[in-house]
């Protein structure tokens, strides 16, 4: 019977309550540890297609009559379009249509950031479209851009109202403390730079529109395009078969999809609107900069008496204000807290979610400040964290559905214990040290999400769901889960995904939610098919259902009987066994979170400011691990992105004009293979006993969170320098070293207490 219940859903730290319908009995979780297929190292099932260049990305879709769009984007951070004339563009070679600010909502005549879309052209080739964009005549009136986040807060230019959070008595906590540290931490703007740029193709056909798009959320795009066009949702078909990376920036249709939809409508031909790499670096979203003025106070025994601070999210002209203060509020059992968050709205390109938005930035500030506190108290940094361990969620006193952070700390010990040895290996100008940082984040996923499983006469199963695999290997994970439940080999499971017309609703692939949301739905669907197979087998072989199971491609009976699965499925010839499954609710009254700790070993050249990261040990609690191989790749990927965030990546902006200077991959420094340290991965593979039929939490985001703080803390360990601003360039490091020297020379007693 369908039961209507209310549950809580979280994406990227934002909670909503929602109704869901649960219509099957909850399955018991599988036993802990590696199973036949789940918990094993399984190479991705679409790996060969991708490696051979056979996988069809949006960038590879070719349709008859396909036109190419190019977009006129504002060269100014803030301007007004006094006049615009599209006629020369329209008359140019190959041009089929041109649109401006009066034509669709997404094009603006008052661009509020460099890169804001103003007009667009569709032509037979991209070269023609781009040439025509140059022929658009615009008279600009340049306006004063607002670029300074503190100034924006002062002027009240805010994206959201400022938020204050308090618990206990922050002032009293300061008074009770034996040591107080205060510091200003800053993080920079970084860019996602997925290798497939943001793009979509719109094709009006069959009384509706088909959108091919590189997206993390097929169903979100479907809803948005339906709203935009006034079409019923089922007349909008969204397809994303293979996807070239997103990292949070591809959760919405962007500006390029409405442009493609309108140009395709006007021309009667399909239109691709694909961002160039330069547009990608300007107008595709970014991780916003932050300023964190933060305080930590503790008694001599290390117990935190107060944590607090002012957080300024330097958001561009759009996006949302992520929880930079979240780690401070959630990670430790501190009774007294006051945080204030300001969301500065600036004339800069809009923010978009980027792998654990807010928590990457906030963890850098918090976990570095905690090490400053540990140094002042002369307490071991790992010990300080243990003394302030939170046993329940401090935001609303809910119990955790599972928390293996203490186990993570225990496993970190041998790596942490290397620091005397590592320090002693300093040589000449190269100083070595070890640092650690903890990680807290969401990642529980939630309903709704659905899968179907069909089993054919050959005993093969097809998982059908309209989710997207953005490169994380979620397709392979679904195949593993279905194979495990049906007791068949992984190569007998196939997965159909990526098309809203061919499968049920699936979650967005963001907030580390694909596996914890879709995995349980897939298992439920496979279990539904399995139940039917067993019912049929019981009748065919005249045995009781309760003694039957599916294992190793066979139907096995507890009394020793065994039949090939195809003896049952083969009976049915062209008929199919159809199972359906839904993601159940999240555990009531509990907080579902992921945890971890990372230990970094670095070498610093104190003469040149060069930092080399030698090793990062990543220990994380993400519940049950579905695919040990794919999971290790996710962890490595998160760490390497974190490494770029920490050491080399920074979007540079001209502070006078607000123009973006780093638009290419030679100026915006992504990590290369030559920059990668030794990475040691240890996942605490214990299922969350309260979370779904799998006990699997999300993994995509946690590994990037503690990287910057672990490296900065290791630099402090090596050199005594407090690095408080990202990226840690040579200039930044040499400045911190000079400050540390100056501090050492101060007479005793004058240092702030």
């Amino acid at each position: 019977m369908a039961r209507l219940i209310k549950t809580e859903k979280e994406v990227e730290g934002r909670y909503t309550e929602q109704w869901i319908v649960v219509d099957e009995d909850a399955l018991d979780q599988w036993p802990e540890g590696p199973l036949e297929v789940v918990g094993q190292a399984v190479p991705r099932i679409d790996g060969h297609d991708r490696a051979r260049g056979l996988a069809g990305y949006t960038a590879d879709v070719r349709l008859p009559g396909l036109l190419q769009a190019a977009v006129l984007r504002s060269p100014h951070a803030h301007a007004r379009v006094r006049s615009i004339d599209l006629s020369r563009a329209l008359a140019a070679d190959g041009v089929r249509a041109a649109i401006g600010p009066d034509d669709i909502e997404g094009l603006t005549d008052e661009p509020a950031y460099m890169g804001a879309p103003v007009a667009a052209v569709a032509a037979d080739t991209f070269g023609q479209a781009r040439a025509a964009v140059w022929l658009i005549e615009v008279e600009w009136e340049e306006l004063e851009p607002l670029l300074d986040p503190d100034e924006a807060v002062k002027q009240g230019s805010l994206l959201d109202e400022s938020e204050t959070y308090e618990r206990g008595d922050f002032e009293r906590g300061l008074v009770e403390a034996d040591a107080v540290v205060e510091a200003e931490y800053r993080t920079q703007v970084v860019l996602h730079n997925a290798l497939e740029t943001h793009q979509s193709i719109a094709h009006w056909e069959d009384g509706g529109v088909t959108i091919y798009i590189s997206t993390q959320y097929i169903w979100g795009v479907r809803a948005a395009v339906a709203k935009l066009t006034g079409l019923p949702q089922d007349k909008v078909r969204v397809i994303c078969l293979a996807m070239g990376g997103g990292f949070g920036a591809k959760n919405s249709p962007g500006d390029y999809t409405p442009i493609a939809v309108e140009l395709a409508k006007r021309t009667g031909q399909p239109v691709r609107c694909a961002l160039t790499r330069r547009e990608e670096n300007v107008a595709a979203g970014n991780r916003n900069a932050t300023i964190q003025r933060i305080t930590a106070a503790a008694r001599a025994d290390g117990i935190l008496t107060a944590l607090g601070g002012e957080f300024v999210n330097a958001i561009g002209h759009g996006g949302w204000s992520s929880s930079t203060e979240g780690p401070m509020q959630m990670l430790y059992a501190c009774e007294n807290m006051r945080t204030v968050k300001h969301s500065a709205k600036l004339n800069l390109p809009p923010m978009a979610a980027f792998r654990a938005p807010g928590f990457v930035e906030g963890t850098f500030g918090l976990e570095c400040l905690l090490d400053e506190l540990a140094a002042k108290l002369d307490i071991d940094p790992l010990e300080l964290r243990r003394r302030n361990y939170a046993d329940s969620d401090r935001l609303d006193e809910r119990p955790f559905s599972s928390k293996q952070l203490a186990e993570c700390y225990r496993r970190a010990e041998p790596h942490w214990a290397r620091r005397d040895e590592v320090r002693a290996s300093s040589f000449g100008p190269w100083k070595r040290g070890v640092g650690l940082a903890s990680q807290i984040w969401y990642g529980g996923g939630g309903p709704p999400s659905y899968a179907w499983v069909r089993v054919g006469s050959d005993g093969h199963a097809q998982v059908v769901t309209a989710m997207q695999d953005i490169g994380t290997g979620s397709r392979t994970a679904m195949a593993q889960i279905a194979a495990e439940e049906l007791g068949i080999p992984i190569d007998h499971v196939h997965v159909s995904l990526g098309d809203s017309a061919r499968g049920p609703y699936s979650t967005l692939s963001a907030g580390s939610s694909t596996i914890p949301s879709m995995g349980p739905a897939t298992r439920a669907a496979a279990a539904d098919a399995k139940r039917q197979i067993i019912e049929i087998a019981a009748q065919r072989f005249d045995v009781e259902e309760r003694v039957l199971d599916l294992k190793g491609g066979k139907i096995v009976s507890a009394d020793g009987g065994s039949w090939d699965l195809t003896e049952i499925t083969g009976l049915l010839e062209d008929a199919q066994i159809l199972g359906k499954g839904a993601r159940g609710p999240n555990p009531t009254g509990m907080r579902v979170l992921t945890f971890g700790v990372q230990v970094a070993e670095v070498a610093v050249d104190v003469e040149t400011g060069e930092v080399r990261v030698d090793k990062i040990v990543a220990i994380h609690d993400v519940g049950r691990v579905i695919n040990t191989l794919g999971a290790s790749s996710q962890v490595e990927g998160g760490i390497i992105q974190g490494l770029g965030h920490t050491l080399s990546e920074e979007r540079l902006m001209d502070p006078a004009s607000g123009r973006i200077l780093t638009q290419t991959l030679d100026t915006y420094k992504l990590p290369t293979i030559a920059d990668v340290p030794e990475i040691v991965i240890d996942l605490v593979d214990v299922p969350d006993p309260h979370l779904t039929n799998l006990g699997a939490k999300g993994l995509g985001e946690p590994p990037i969170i503690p990287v910057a703080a672990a490296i900065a803390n290791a630099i402090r360990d090596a050199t005594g320098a407090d690095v408080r601003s990202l990226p840690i360039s040579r200039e930044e490091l040499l400045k911190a070293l000079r400050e540390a020297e100056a501090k050492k020379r101060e007479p005793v007693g004058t240092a702030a207490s």
Partner: protein
Amino acid sequence: MIELDVNGQRYELEAPVGRSLADVLRDDLGLIGTKIACGEGHCGACTVQLDGVPVLSCITLVHTVGSRKITTIEGLRDHPLVDAFVVADALQCGFCTPGQIVSASALVAANPSPSKDEIRHAMAGNLCRCGTYPKIEEAIQAWQG
């Protein structure tokens, strides 16, 4: 009219002056395995080989290729590196992967057992935003089975 030798096949085609090899491969010949990710020679996704030497096809003008033999990922589909990449999980989204394999196959053709440093030197021009680098290193060390 220009003539190209692509993966052992001979093609004759018209191309305007200024057309890149990458555009010819993808749009004129339909060989979409070669990806364009930056379009200006910074990322390596479009790597193909000319007479066995890796080049960036997005900044190679097709008229400069001449009689050199072009090898794209389509010509390397049965190269043992493909299996090695998949087994090691040296790909995530896979958009950079064809370019990685084209570069790696040129490396191992000249040096079948490259050291870690040699791999890092040869592969540093192929960016991967998903961060598959440790597994790429592993795959190139393991490709001979």
